[in-house]
């Protein structure tokens, strides 16, 4: 690559008029040292303003006794050292107990949702790898849940989960007779199932998209060779398709995990400002601690704890998968 560029350079020099070429190249080089930084500047400034500075402020806030009385001048809020953290992790007291519960619910929800999204997305992509009639249409259709704005999609589910006039109870109770009486879906224990259903419905097409893209990178010769060796379809899927998707899956699972774990939009539209206990995801829980019960200090401490957890998980995950990759190569 560099050799071809160098080989062409003299020819160009001949065509550029005059001796200005020498100094200009030097300034060019000087400019180029600064250029990458210049190109990165807008992104850096924005990330600083909207993500990093707020994060630092959030960390500072977590050490303060920040209630609604101090919200106009948060700097004046009294320093509380580790009190907010102590309250958050005191699992015998109400605040800590609720946080732990919410954390466990979130973990269970995230694992189930990511697992199901991955499973459905992968199965759909693998089944649709070969061409068949109606494949294009089906693919477009499958992407609709992903393309729909969250609130529009989730509001539709809210309607379907209504106790008296919803589709879910109508089908389960009136038409199939599976339940004794119409159930409540947006309060009580069923809310976990409702949340999971909506999350999977909305999320699996992303896995489908990524896996579909990943499948396009598998060279056709691999399949031809396997076919020559007499491998059947199922064997080809198990021995070629799925192993080839490994690097794709590593990224996919991490991204899905982070997005699902931090998802606020889905539970917020589904349940409102206060989620039922069984579906009390941590992001809404923190929102509630901060904006409903007006304890911003505790809310910030919970956020920081959450961030630490995510850093730990992501770091561990990356270390694990990159080691696997090194061993594979």
């Amino acid at each position, binding site marked *: *690559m560099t050799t*071809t*560029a160098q080989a062409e350079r003299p020819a*160009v020099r001949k065509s550029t008029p005059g001796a200005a070429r020498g100094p200009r190249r030097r300034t060019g080089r000087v400019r*180029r040292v600064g250029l*990458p*930084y210049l*190109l990165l500047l*807008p*992104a850096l400034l*924005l*990330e600083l*303003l909207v993500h*990093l*500075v*707020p*994060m630092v402020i*959030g960390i500072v*806030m977590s050490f303060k006794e920040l209630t609604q009385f101090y919200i106009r001048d*948060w700097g004046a809020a009294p320093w509380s050292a580790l009190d907010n953290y102590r309250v958050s992790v005191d699992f015998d007291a109400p605040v800590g107990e609720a946080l732990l519960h919410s954390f466990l619910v979130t973990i269970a929800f995230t694992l189930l949702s990511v697992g199901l999204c991955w499973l459905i997305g992968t199965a*759909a992509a693998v*089944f649709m790898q*070969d061409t068949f009639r109606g494949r294009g249409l089906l693919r477009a*259709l*499958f*992407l*609709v849940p992903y*393309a*729909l*704005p*969250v*609130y*529009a*999609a989730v509001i*539709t589910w809210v*309607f*379907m989960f209504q106790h008296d*006039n*919803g589709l879910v*109870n*109508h089908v389960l109770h*009136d038409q199939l007779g599976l339940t004794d009486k119409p159930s409540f879906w947006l309060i009580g224990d069923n809310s976990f199932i409702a949340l999971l259903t909506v999350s999977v419905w909305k999320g699996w097409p992303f896995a489908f998209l*990524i896996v*579909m*893209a*990943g499948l*396009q990178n598998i060279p056709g010769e691999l399949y031809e060779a396997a076919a020559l060796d007499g491998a059947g379809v*199922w064997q080809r899927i198990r021995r070629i398709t799925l192993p080839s998707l490994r690097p794709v899956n590593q*990224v996919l699972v991490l*991204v899905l995990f982070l997005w699902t*774990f*931090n998802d*606020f*939009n889905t539970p917020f539209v589904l349940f409102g400002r206060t989620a039922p206990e069984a579906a009390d995801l941590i*992001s809404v829980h923190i929102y509630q601690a*901060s904006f409903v019960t007006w304890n911003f200090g505790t809310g910030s401490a919970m956020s*920081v704890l959450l*961030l630490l957890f*995510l850093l730990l998980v*992501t770091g561990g995950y990356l270390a694990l998968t990159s080691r696997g990759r090194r061993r594979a190569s």
Partner: protein
Amino acid sequence: MAPPRSFLWSRRIFLTLLTGFVLVPVYVMVSSSLKPLADVTGKFRWLPSELTIRPYIDIWSTVPLARYFVNSLVVAGAATVCSVVIAVFSAYAVSRYEFRGKRVFTVTVLSTQMFPGILFLLPLFLIYVNIGNATGIALFGSRGGLILTYLTFSLPFSIWMLIGYFDSVPRDLDEAALVDGCGPLGALFRVVVPAAVPGIVAVAVYAFMTAWGEVLFASVMTNDTTRTLAVGLQGYSTLNDVYWNQIMAASLVVSVPVVAGFLLLQRYLVAGLTAGAVK
């Protein structure tokens, strides 16, 4: 070689069930939007008792939907344009140059993806209010503040995807352009960007959808005049009535632009993901 029957049957069953799962809410949305109010307040009916387009007329007067629509369009559109331009510059720098701090930059930007939005909601709110008090630039409650916030949401993923995409554009191409007398930016806009159109379209679609669908910041950081669709749709439920038919009609109306755009551009999206995110 024809696939065996077991494969064909599994495929048929799986895809049929999945189609049902995907379609039911879409059907509910469409059919309910054409029902009279009595149909959506009583027991659920699969078929409307009478077809009416009344909800589609009423949605514009029950809440100021047109204003919310314009707000969403302005906010999501501006956030998308800014986010794509900034991501193109950053990705180009990372893909084509060696410089100190490159790794720190990519890791930092990517790790912001990890932050729970709730972590910086309140601090950001305070920052915007303080900037407003100090400089008179109204960020809180304005479209500008929302644009600024949203464009950073899609930025990390966009940069990451475009780095991969730009890496797949042969370096020889833009080096040749540099040799031919283009400046680095000339090479970027005349060679790399045209070659990376699918990736850029994919990133734009993603950025637009992120901004169009965001709820949390929209509900805290907007006021009556700047409210977006994400918050505005809540206006259809009053204390006495929930106008489900109007909610469904409005949901459909706000979904059509994004879904249509997305489906038109989905080929680009797969192509963009193939080279960008999936390598």
